[in-house]
């Protein structure tokens, strides 16, 4: 008798296939199936100074860890097991990777609103909104918008690639290294190509779209499915990481 398609298998069967047969497509299906749970949990932590999509990315890491650590001998549903893992990952993120310096709560909240505001205005106006347009939409001043933007740079974003460390996969929580003030001649002249290979696929693709295909951040955001501000932060982070690798 032919076995059922994996999409119709229950969680337990998928977990068995992953843990006993090493079937990574089963793991991927479990992740996709339970992303709505992650989104629901992530929403509880929205409005604390970080975009919802960033929190969801962190929560997804918790989900993957739960799937990887699940013991088949447990008589507990995956959702039950995964929930504290997802919440724990999000809380740990806020504790460890949160605001690097103390930012007034008002600015944190303003920064959190900016991403969706910029997206909304870009769609409405047909161009990237100016500081004044963002300020008007948020009923604040241009100075406050600029301060909120700057406050955002005090936050450490996470990677788009939600995979566990080890097994050749990149841990999205790993640090990007430190900047070396001495950038050698050959490194300046040479391509950053070797370091490019060290980036997660999706971030490498974002750099390619921006600097090779010449797409704008907004266009990339539409294609990748994240906000324009997130694209901006990932580009900066990726370039910094590549430079650190070459130093």
């Amino acid at each position, binding site marked *: 008798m032919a076995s059922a398609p994996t999409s119709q298998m229950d969680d337990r069967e998928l977990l068995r296939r992953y843990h006993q047969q090493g079937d990574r497509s089963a793991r991927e299906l479990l992740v996709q199936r339970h992303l709505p749970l992650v989104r629901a949990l992530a929403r509880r932590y929205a409005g604390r100074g970080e975009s919802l999509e960033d929190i969801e990315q962190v929560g997804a890491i918790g989900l993957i860890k739960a799937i990887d650590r699940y013991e088949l001998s447990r008589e507990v549903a995956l959702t039950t097991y995964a929930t504290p893992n997802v919440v724990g990952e999000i809380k740990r993120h806020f504790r460890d990777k949160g605001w690097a310096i103390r930012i007034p709560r008002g600015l944190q909240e303003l920064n959190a609103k900016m991403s969706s505001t910029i997206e909304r205005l870009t769609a409405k106006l047909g161009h990237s909104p*100016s500081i*004044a347009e963002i300020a008007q939409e948020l009923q604040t001043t241009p100075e406050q918008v600029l301060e909120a933007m700057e406050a955002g740079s005090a936050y450490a974003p996470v990677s788009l690639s939600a995979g566990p460390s080890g097994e050749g996969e990149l841990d999205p929580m790993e640090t990007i290294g430190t900047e070396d003030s001495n950038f050698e001649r*050959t490194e300046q*002249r040479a391509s950053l*190509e070797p370091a490019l290979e060290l980036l997660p696929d999706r971030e490498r693709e974002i750099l390619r779209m921006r*600097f*090779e295909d010449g797409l*704008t951040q907004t266009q990339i955001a539409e294609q990748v499915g994240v906000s324009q501000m997130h694209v901006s932060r990932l580009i900066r982070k990726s370039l910094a990481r590549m430079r650190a690798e070459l130093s």
Partner: protein
Amino acid sequence: MPHDTIELTTPVGRDWDPVVRLVLGGIADRLNLGFEELDDLQLAVERLLLEAGSQDSVTLAFDVSENGVRTRIGPLRAGALAEALQGPPPPPGELTLRRILETVVDSFGVEQVAEDGQLIVRLEKVVRGG
């Protein structure tokens, strides 16, 4: 809008980047630049300041007109930077400083070479109608 110049001399280092970004933000607001254009300009200046390496300070002169903003940054260490900016275009697929600047500003170049061999680099960002 008259032609205005804003000049900022700042220590070099990541700790001082926010000061530069805020000044650029104020100029972008004055020129009605889009958020993305501001972000591009900030990235260009940040990358160049990174290349300034271990030098103590740098001066940024912003010439602001209704057409856009021309930023002069210097003095920067010469040598590799001049090669990076003035050499042949990078082959397709190579991500170099030059490729980054070509993407994020409308034009750039080495405007002045000081007697001691240090450079002034020019970046231009044009205002486009919304």
